[in-house]
């Protein structure tokens, strides 16, 4: 390095520091920086990962046929369709054969990010790709059920070939036959796409209006060119149920939304989106969006304080630190829609390491500990809700009545809930296992997801209550990461665990189904609950009715009935739904709370509506 270079370097440092101290301290006036802690995984909309973090990206990049109207959870606005179908405008027709036809006229003149035009064929392909790619438990199960009568491909394939267990084993003839059904269920006629619902589904419009479900529209031509499924029966199985990183849309996107992906820097966990200038509603006010993963809370807080981040994820426990910060807006609390629940595993795998001694000898629990309803009821009466809500959540939370957010209609109905009552809890413990529980005490391990303060505190509060009740009562609390937790949960190893569920659907059907139905998301690994749900006239049958009906009042009552069954059987510990507050720089305008808008571990953002002063 010669002298000249040295002096230039020195100059650069000085000049750099001086000029930048003035320039770079706030984000640009057409830039939004979000400091979050939600790891973005695949952004392929057909790869259902149930991860709300990717949904944040979808909401900027992709669009659906319909969307929820702003400030509404029950009415829709047309997006890529031009009209919201209804019986009144003749776009929903009930056939004499008991089928329902729903037709969407597709908007013309809509461009994809690469310049391609949106066609009705793209719509059909998008739905088919989602339906054919997803394995069991996928997000499109309601749509599949509406179109075919089967909730997943495995069950459907079995209807053709009873001998097989999974779709992967199906013969070519079966695959052809299944494809023919799907192909016939979604038909294109000019600019119209018609869905033929073999099973009436009142919630169909809701489930395709949501970013999480099958509703996202992608560009067929471009996607196939990238090496995705070409849309034929012969190739279906090759693309079915892929590994996350093996789908072609894992890291690239070509949607119709107001923003396009500029870069995804996985190493620095930063996703940059830029404005799509040919957007059909006109270009957005914001030019660049940066989604930046920032693990350390102190760093996030300082970024927000200094204006280096416009939105920052503030865990509810750290709200006291942002209250009153200059130039920072803390939005009014609004329901998060997130259901927080503690599960009881009624039949625990006997080789579980969380059972202690495996006997009721004071050092463990038997595998069927939680199958005694007295134990469950005792624990349900041991949580001091008032204290939990007021001390931990600053009063910004409500006890939930079951698998249903406060935003959902069934929650308005009269459903009983458990209340804090140590005396009653003691009584139930004394009744459990013929008094053996009270006599000998117990010990086991409860599990929650690492870093979840609310879950940890709920378990700690219950533990403190139990220990005070009887010094022989105790349990350990283990914080787990998801890739440890999921194999444990699916093999029924965990006696008591916490889980949460983001806001799924305003009707409440999705969450109630996920928690209560025998084939709901959680339940294949909860033997006790499966038995309960499958009883004649039981939960499964009620939920089936709720899905079919087009009558909102009837559906709400049916869902409330399921929630009451849950109460009577003490199936879960329904914790709370807390109110969340968005925290952002005051120069950002246009943000409004919308519970259906997906967020990245925080309230959702309608990117298109944002602008800066």
């Amino acid at each position: 390095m010669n002298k000249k270079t040295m002096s230039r370097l020195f100059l650069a440092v000085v000049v750099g520091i001086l000029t930048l101290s003035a320039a770079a301290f706030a984000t640009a006036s057409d830039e939004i920086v979000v400091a979050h802690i939600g790891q973005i995984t695949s952004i392929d909309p057909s790869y259902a990962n149930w991860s709300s973090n990717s949904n944040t990206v979808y909401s900027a990049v992709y669009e659906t046929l319909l969307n929820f109207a702003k400030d509404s959870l029950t009415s829709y606005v047309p997006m890529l369709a031009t009209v919201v179908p209804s019986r009144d405008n003749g776009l929903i027709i009930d056939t004499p054969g008991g089928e329902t036809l729903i037709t969407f006229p597709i908007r013309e003149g809509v461009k994809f990010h690469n310049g391609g035009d949106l066609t009705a064929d793209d719509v059909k392909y998008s739905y088919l790709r989602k339906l054919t790619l997803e394995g069991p438990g996928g997000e499109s199960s309601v749509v599949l059920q509406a179109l075919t009568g089967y909730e997943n491909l495995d069950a459907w394939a079995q209807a053709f070939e009873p001998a097989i267990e999974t779709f992967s084993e199906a013969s070519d003839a079966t695959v052809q036959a299944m494809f023919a059904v799907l192909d016939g269920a979604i038909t294109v006629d000019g600019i119209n796409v018609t869905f033929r619902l073999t099973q009436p589904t009142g919630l169909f419009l809701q489930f395709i209006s949501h970013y999480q479900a099958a509703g996202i529209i992608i560009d067929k031509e471009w996607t196939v060119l990238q090496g995705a499924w070409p849309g034929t029966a012969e190739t279906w199985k090759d693309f079915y149920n892929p590994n996350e990183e093996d789908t072609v849309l894992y890291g690239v996107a070509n949607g119709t939304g107001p923003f396009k992906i500029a870069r995804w820097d996985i190493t620095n966990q930063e996703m940059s989106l830029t404005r799509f200038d040919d957007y059909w509603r006109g270009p957005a006010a914001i030019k660049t969006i940066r989604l930046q993963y920032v693990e350390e809370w102190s760093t996030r807080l300082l970024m927000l304080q200094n204006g280096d981040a416009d939105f920052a994820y503030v865990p509810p426990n750290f709200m006291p630190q942002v209250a009153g910060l200059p130039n920072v807006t803390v939005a009014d609390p609004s329901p998060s829609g997130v259901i927080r629940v503690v599960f009881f595993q009624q039949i625990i795998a006997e080789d579980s390491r969380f059972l202690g001694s495996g006997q009721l000898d004071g050092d463990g629990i038997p595998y069927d500990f939680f199958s005694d309803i007295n134990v469950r009821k005792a624990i349900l009466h041991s949580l001091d809700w008032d204290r939990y809500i007021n001390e931990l959540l600053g009063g910004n939370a409500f006890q939930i009545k079951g698998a249903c957010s406060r935003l959902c209609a069934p929650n308005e109905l009269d459903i009983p809930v458990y209340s804090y009552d140590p005396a009653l809890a003691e009584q139930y413990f004394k009744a459990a296992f013929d008094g053996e529980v009270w006599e000998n005490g117990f010990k086991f391990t409860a599990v929650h997801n690492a870093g979840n303060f609310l879950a940890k505190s709920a378990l700690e509060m219950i533990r403190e209550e139990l220990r005070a009740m009887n010094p022989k009562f105790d349990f350990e609390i283990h914080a787990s990461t998801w890739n440890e937790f999921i194999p444990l949960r699916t093999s029924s190893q965990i006696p008591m665990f916490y889980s949460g569920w983001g806001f799924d659907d305003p009707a409440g059907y999705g969450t109630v189904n996920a928690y209560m139905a025998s084939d709901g998301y959680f339940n294949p690994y909860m033997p006790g609950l499966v038995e309960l749900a499958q009883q004649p006239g039981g939960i499964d049958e009620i939920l089936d009715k709720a899905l079919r009906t087009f009558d909102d009042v009837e559906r709400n009552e049916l869902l409330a009935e399921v929630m009451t069954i849950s109460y009577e059987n003490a199936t879960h510990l329904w914790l709370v739904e807390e109110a969340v507050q968005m925290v952002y720089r005051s120069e950002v305008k246009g943000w409004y709370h919308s519970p259906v808008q997906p967020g990245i571990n925080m309230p959702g953002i309608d990117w298109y509506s944002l602008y800066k002063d």
Partner: protein
Amino acid sequence: MIKTLKNLFIKNPIGLLSGAILLVYTLVAIFAPLIAPPTPYRSPYEIPRDGFAIAPKPPSAEHWFGTTEGQFDIFHGVVWGTRTAFKIAAVVVSCGFVLGILIGGISGFYGGVIDEITMRITDIFLSFPFLLAAMVLATVLGKGLGSMIIALVVFRWMTYARLVRAEVLRLKQITFVEAAHAIGAPNWRVLVRHILPNCVYPAMIQASMDIGRVVMSASALSFLGLGVEAGYADWGQLISLARNWIIGGAQGAFQYWYTVIFPGGILFLFVLSWNILGDALRDVFDPRMRGVH
């Protein structure tokens, strides 16, 4: 001996001060049950909590040092954390010490293939920086005081082994050992009676300097979330509970000062005192340093 003690403390007021500070720590550890009485039916190491509220609360008559996030009593945590610190330091350093003396002694004394093998194994263990190695092992073993201690011990013996080996090699050349050999004393006896006692000093100096490092590494593990279980009295745990409050809140950067200052300051003072004492000990005892004074 008296002269060396004099050297150690009288001529070195800072050394004396650090010795006095460590004495206070020792007293606190011994009388912990009197200073911060434990809750009945609970392990004394379990920090009592006053409710579950999130934001830390400043010092008050009830909580002398205030409370952390989640209302753990900082005073109780600090007092019993002193015991934890001594426990960790004692177990880790003495295990490392014994292992090191055995391995280094045997390696140096027998030489040849044994020496070669043990020294290569030592090299392998030394190829990880201490904190990283302990971090990896603690991750694998899971949370808890026990696994943390094991993780620290497994990667703490190598320095001692090398020191002792070098010392043994030196002593082997010295007359009295050769004489012992000459009169036909068995190998193990020469090693145990004549050589090892003489290697203990350098290893002890090393040990005194290690105590601070070990406690600091343990707190770093706790800070990374790999240390003791939640609620266990441990300085690192208290500091990690302060982690999210260090930069303060709307009422200024120092709004939650007590969450950092008490556990952080006490940890820092402990480490500092041990390091100063270790330094002073080395100045006095280290044979290579003797000529210096």
